[in-house]
C-alpha cells in the first residue's frame, strides 16, 4: 500500500499532496516539512530509499523518492510494495506528466495541480497501484479531457441560450445569426 504521495520543490513548497490515510491539515504540513528535511539533505548520488519517516507509519514504512530538476517526488509505502517497482512507478508517473503537459516543468504543476491530480488518479487509486502502462494512462486522461472540453463548450452555449431570462434579454439585442448557431 502507498500511504502518501508528496511532490514538493527544492525549497519544500508542496506542489501536490495526496494522503491515503487521514491526517489533519497541520499534521500534513508537518509531515511535508519533515519529509523535505529528510530528503533535501541527501546527495543525488545516494540511494533513493529512506527509513525512519517516523511521522508517517512505523518501521514497516519507507520513503521512496526521486529528484527531478527542481522537484522531489516522494512516495511513502509499506513493505508490500516492491522498492524498485515504486521507483519505476515514479518514473512512469513523471513520463506521463511529460506527455500530458508536453515537456512538463514545475510551473505546470504549480498552475495545474488539479490536472496533476487527475493524472495521478489514473495511476494510483486509494493507495494501490491502478495502472502502470503509460499509454493506457495517457489514453484515459485524454478521453476525460476531451469529455471536459466538450462539456465546457456546451456549457458556454447553454449559458447564453438556454436560460429563458437570458434569451428574452438577448432577443432584441443579439442579431439572428447568434440564435441560430447550432448547439
Amino acid at each position, binding site marked *: *500500500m502507498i500511504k502518501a504521495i508528496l511532490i514538493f520543490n527544492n525549497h519544500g513548497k*508542496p506542489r*501536490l*499532496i*495526496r494522503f*491515503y490515510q*487521514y491526517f*489533519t*491539515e*497541520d499534521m*500534513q*504540513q508537518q509531515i511535508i516539512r519533515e519529509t523535505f528535511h529528510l530528503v533535501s539533505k*541527501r*546527495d543525488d*548520488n*545516494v*540511494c*533513493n*530509499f*529512506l*527509513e525512519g519517516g517516523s511521522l508517517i507509519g512505523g518501521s514497516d514504512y519507507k520513503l521512496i523518492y526521486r529528484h527531478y530538476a527542481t522537484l522531489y517526488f516522494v512516495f511513502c509505502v509499506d513493505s*508490500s510494495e*516492491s*522498492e*524498485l*517497482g515504486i*521507483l*519505476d512507478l515514479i518514473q512512469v508517473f513523471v513520463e506521463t506528466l511529460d506527455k500530458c503537459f508536453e515537456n512538463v516543468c514545475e510551473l505546470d504543476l*504549480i*498552475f*495545474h*495541480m*488539479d490536472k496533476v*491530480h*487527475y493524472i495521478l*488518479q489514473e495511476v494510483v*487509486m*486509494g*493507495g*494501490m*497501484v*491502478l*495502472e*502502470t*502502462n503509460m499509454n*493506457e494512462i495517457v489514453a*484515459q486522461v485524454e*478521453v*476525460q479531457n476531451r*469529455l*471536459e472540453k466538450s*462539456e*465546457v463548450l456546451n*456549457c458556454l452555449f447553454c*449559458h447564453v441560450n438556454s436560460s429563458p*431570462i*437570458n434569451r*428574452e*434579454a*438577448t432577443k432584441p439585442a443579439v442579431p439572428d445569426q447568434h440564435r441560430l448557431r447550432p448547439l
Partner: protein
Amino acid sequence: MALKIVKGSIDRMFDKNLQDLVRGIRNHKEDEAKYISTCIDEIKQELKQDNIAVKANAVCKLTYLQMLGYDVSWAAFNIVEVMSSSKFTYKRIGYLAASQCFHESTDVIMLTTNQIRKDLSSPNQYDTGVALTGLSCFVTPDLARDLANDIMTLMSHTKPYIRKKAVLIMYKVFLKYPESLRPAFPRLKEKLEDPDPGVQSAAVNVICELARRNPKNYLSLAPLFFKLMTSSTNNWVLIKIIKLFGALTPLEPRLGKKLIEPLTNLIHSTSAMSLLYECVNTVIAVLISLSSGMPNHSASIQLCVQKLRILIEDSDQNLKYLGLLAMSKILKTHPKSVQSHKDLILQCLDDKDESIRLRALDLLYGMVSKKNLMEIVKKLMLHVDKAEGTTYRDELLTKIIDICSQSNYQYITNFEWYISILVELTRLEGTRHGHLIASQMLDVAIRVKAIRVFAVAQMATLLDNAHLMTGNVQRKGICEVLYAAAWICGEFSEHLENPTQTLEAMLRPKVATLPGHIQAVYVQNAAKLFATVLKSQEGNTDSTAAQETSQLMIERLPLFVQSANLEVQERASCILQLVKYIQKLQQKDVEVAEEVIALFDGELNPVAPKAQKKVPVPEGLDLDAWINEPPSESESEDDQPKAIFAKEETKHSRTRHTEVDEKELAKRREVRKQEQANNPFYIKASPSSQKVYQEAPGVEHIPVVQIDLSVPLKVPGLPMSDQYVKLEEERRQKERVEKKKKDKKKRKEKGGGRRKKRDSGPESEEDITPAHMVDIVTEEMPENALPSDDDDKDPNDPHKALDIDLDKPLADSEKLPVRSHRAAEALKSPAEDGEAEAAASLEPKKKSSKEKREKKKDKEKDRKSKDDKKKKKHRRVEKGEDLLGGQADGPVAQSEETSEAAAPPAANTAEVSDLDFWLSNAPVPPNTQEAATLAEAAPAHETASGTAPDSEPDDEPKDTEPEETDKKSSKHKKKKQKKEKEDKEKKKKKKHHHHHHHSDGGGEESVQNGTMEEEEPLPPMSNYCLLAESSYIKMENDIQGNLQDGSQVVVSVIFENKCDSFLKSMEFNVLDSLNSKLQRPEGSGPHDGLTVPFQLPPGVSNEARFVFTVQSIVMPQKLKGTLTFIVKNEDSSTHEKLDFKLHFTCSSYLITTPCYSDAFAKLLESGDLKCSSVRLEGVSQPFHHLLARICFHHHFSVVERVDSCASMYSRSIQGHHVCLLVKTSGQTVSIDAKCDEPTLLGNVLDEIKQTFSQC
C-alpha cells in the same frame, strides 16, 4: 434586472480561477496569509451563488488551499453539491476535493450515499470511474456497507476500466466492512483470470494485500497463483505474486519446494532488477521455511548470496541498499553463508550514504558469533570515534549494545570485556543514550552474578571520576550512567574494595548539580554503603572509624536535605535522622551494624517486562462482576460514567485469556522448564524462580574466576577493552591446549573412542566456553504465567477483522445488503424480494445492534481469537433470524444453523486435501503447462462448496434442477431445429460430407440429423465426440450452452455398454475448476460424484445430462473427471473406473441465433466489436459445405451469402455477439471476424481452424 443577470454572468467569467489564485499568491509573497484570507472570503461569496460553475471553481481553489495547509472542512457541504452536479467536469472537481479533505468523521458523508450510488450506475463510465476513485479515499464503514453490493456488481462491468477500479476499491470496502469479504471473494477470485491484464493485476493486488495480513486464509489460492506466476509476463503482477508467495511459504513448507525451481529460473532469466530482487527475496523466504534439515538447497542459498553480492557491489546505491536488506534476511537462518562476506559489509560501514551504513549495521547484528563478537565490536568502536554527527554515532552506540545484548547476551564470552566496553562508551560526548548504557550496566550487574565484583570496581572508578560527566547535565545525557553506577555500588557494596572512598565520592558537593532522580539514587545508596562500611568497621577494635563515617554522613547529607527535588529531600532527611540515631547508639558503644544492614537485606531479582500482565486471575475471582452495583437506568443517561466502566473492563479482560484449561497450562509450564533446563544461562534446579529470593544462594557458591591482575582495572579514561581481545585469545588458546590434553588422556583411557571429530580442525562455535561460568538470572514471571503469542498484536489493527475463513460456504445471512427497490434485482423471486425488503427495513435496527456489538467488541477485544469471532458471527446469525420474526419458524432456523455449523469442517478438510494433492506433486513438473492444468484443477473445490458467485441468492431447490434444465434444453432444442431449417433453406445445394465421428445414440442431434436428411442427403454430422473408452464402456459427449442462464452449460453424455456384463452404480465425477463447476444436488460436497440415473444391460446405450456452471466463457477449458461403476457378471462383480477429460470449447458456449442483415449491419457499425481474422489454406470442400460445418460445429447461422462470400452470426450464452465474414478463393478460405470479446473470438477462430485441419 435581466441585464444585471447577464452582466453577472459575464463577471463570473472574470472570477478568479485556480491559475489566478496561484498567480496571486505568488505575487504576494510577503503578505501571503493576508492575501489568502481575502481569497477565502471571495470563495465564501462564490459558494453562496447558485451557479454550479462558480461553485465548482471555488471548490477547485479550496483544494489548492487545502494543500497549503488550510482547513477547508467548512465547505464540505458545498463540495457535496459540486459532486452531485450532472456535468462530469464539476463532478470531478467535487470528488477530488472530497478525496482530499473528507475523512471518517466528516458528517456530510452521510448525505453522499445516494449520489455515489447514482454515479456508480451512471451510463458514463467516467462518472463511475471518478466516483470510485473518490470513494476509495473517503469510504466509511457505513458507505462500505451500503455500497458494497453496487461495487460488487461493477466488478463484472463490461469496461475493463471500471472493472479494475471496482476490484481495487473492494479492498477498502473489506477493511471498513469485513462482512463483505466472504460474499465478494468468489468474484474477486474470478477476476484473477480476467482477460484484461489491468483487471487481473488489480485483483492480484487486492488479494496480495489481504493475504499479507492473514496469509493462512489464502493458502488455498496457492495453486492458482502458481499458475499465474508461470504464465504471466507482467512484471508488476509477477512481483506481487512472488511477494505473496514469500508470505505464504512460512505456513506451508511444501509450497516452498515447489517454488524453488521456477523462481531460480526467473532469477537466471529476468533482466528486470526489480523482479530479480523480489525473486531472491522469496527464495530466501522459502529457504527460511525449509531451513531445518534441507542441506540440498545450499545451491539456492549460494545463488542468492551470489546475486546479492553483485547487487551490493553495484555502483547503484539503490541496489546496494536492497542487497544489504535482503542479505539481512538470509542471515537469520544461514548466517554462515553471509558471514563469508563480512569484508564487504564492513566496507559498507564506510559508505557515504547513511541508509546504507545503517543497513550494514543491521547486518552486523546478525553476523556476530562468540568467535567474532569482540573483533566486530572493536571495529565499531573505531567507527564511533571517527563518526561525524551525533545521530550516526548514537546509532552506532545503540547497535553495539544491541549486538552484545542480543538473545540474552548469547555471544558474550567475557563479561569483563563487555563492562569495559560500556565504560568506554560513557566517554562519548553528547550522546543521548546514557540511559541505555545505564540500563545495560544494571542488567549485567544484576543478572550476571559472577561479574559483580568486577562491575562494582569499575562503577566505583566511574563514581570517582564523575566530574568528567557532570558537565553534561541534559536529560538522557551521559550522566544517566551515574545512576547505574551509584546503584550498583550501593546494592553490591559488599564487593567494594574501598567502600569508604566510594561513599566519600558519592557525597561530594558536586553531586548536587546532577538531575534529581540521580541524586535520589545517590542518597539511598550512600545509606547502603554506610551500612556496609559500618559492618566492616565494627569488626575492628577501633570504633572511632565507624563514628567518623557517621560523622561524614551527618556533615554531607544536609546538602541533599536542601534539594529542590522532593524525593531527594525526603530520602535525605529520613536517612539523616537515621544516621543521627545510629551515631547516638555508637556513642553508647552499641553494635548497630547488623541492624542497619538488615534495612537493605535481601536480593533483588529482575522481573520480566510482561510479568505483570501474566499474573493469572485467582480462582473464584470474577473480574467482570460488579464491585458496586451498576448505576440505575436514570443515572446512566449521561455518558461519562459509562465510558469509564467500559474502559475498566477492557483492562481487566486482558488477563482473562489465561483461563486456558489446566492441563494445557501444565504442559506449557513443563515445556518451558525443559527449555530452561537446556539453556546454560538459566539457573537450573530452582523449582520456581520466586523461591530464589528466600534461598539466596549467597555469593560464595558462585564460582568466580580469578581476575587476571595484568589488566589495569583502575586507570580511568583508558581503552581497556582491547586488552581483553588479546586476553581472550590467549585464554581460548589455553583452553584448546587443555582440551587436547584431556582428549588425549581420554583417548588413552578409552582407547580412542568417540571423541575423534574434535581432536583437530578449526575451533567451532560450541568449543568456546565462556570465561566465567556465568549465571544469568532468569527474569521472574508469575507462577502460572503463560507464554502467550498474541501479546504483540495490536487489537486496533483493522486487518484483524479480516481474518476470515474464506473457504467456508456462504451462509444466507452473509449476503450483502441489497436495496430492495433496485431495478437490477428484477430477477429475484417475489418471496425473496419480500425478504430483502424486510432486511432493508431492518437496517436502522441493525445499526443499533451494531452499536451494541461494538461495545461488546471493546470488551472482548483482547481475547478476540478466531473461535470467538466465529461464535459471535453465529450469534449474529441467530439474531438476524429472530429479527425476521414470523418468517423463520423455529425448526427451520435450527436446521439451518446446524447445517452451517456442520459444513465448515467438511469444506475445510476438502480444501486442505486439495492443496495437499497439488503440493504432493512435487517435484515440480518440468512442463509448466501440466502444472498449470493441475493448478487449475486443484483450487476449484472450495468454491464449489456452494458459494454462489453473485450476490443474487440462488434459492431454487436444487433437487428439481435437472428436470428444469432438461425442459429448458428441450425447448431450446426445438428452437434450434427451426433455425437449422431456416439455414438449410437458404443454402440450396448441399453435398454429403464424411464426418469422422458418428453417433447413433438418441438425443437431439439424431433428430436434427433426421430433419436434415429429409431435405438434403448431407452426411450425418454429430457433435458427439468420444470422451473416453475402455473395454467395458464407451462415453461420448456433447456440450450445449443454455440460453436461459448465461452461466450454465449442459453436457450430454452417452454411455454405451460394450461388454457382456451388467453395468450398475455408475458415478460421474469431475474435478471442478475455478471457472467451471459441476452442479451437484444440495448438500453434497464438492467432491461427491453424481449417480447416473440408470443401469446398462449389455449392449445398451443411454444418455445422461449434467449441468455445469461456468463463469467466464472466453476461454476453452478442460476438466478432469472419473466414471466409477460396478461390472456385474453372474459370478462376480468388480469395481472399475474410467478417467476422462471433458473439453469445454468456446464454440460450445455459442448458441445458434438468427440475425437479420440490417441488424447485423448495425452491429458491425456500432464499433464496439474487436476485429480478428484467420486464413485457412488447402480447404478442398465446397463453400456451402464449409458453411454448413461452421454452422453445425460452431453454432453459427448464415446471415447473408453472396457467391463466395458469406456473413455469419452467433451469440454466446452470455450475450457476446460473434460476427464472421467468410470468403473463399480457390483453396484458401479467409475468415474475418468481429466480437466484443477478443479472447473469446480468438478461441472460436482457433477452434474453427482446428475443425478444418482435422479433415
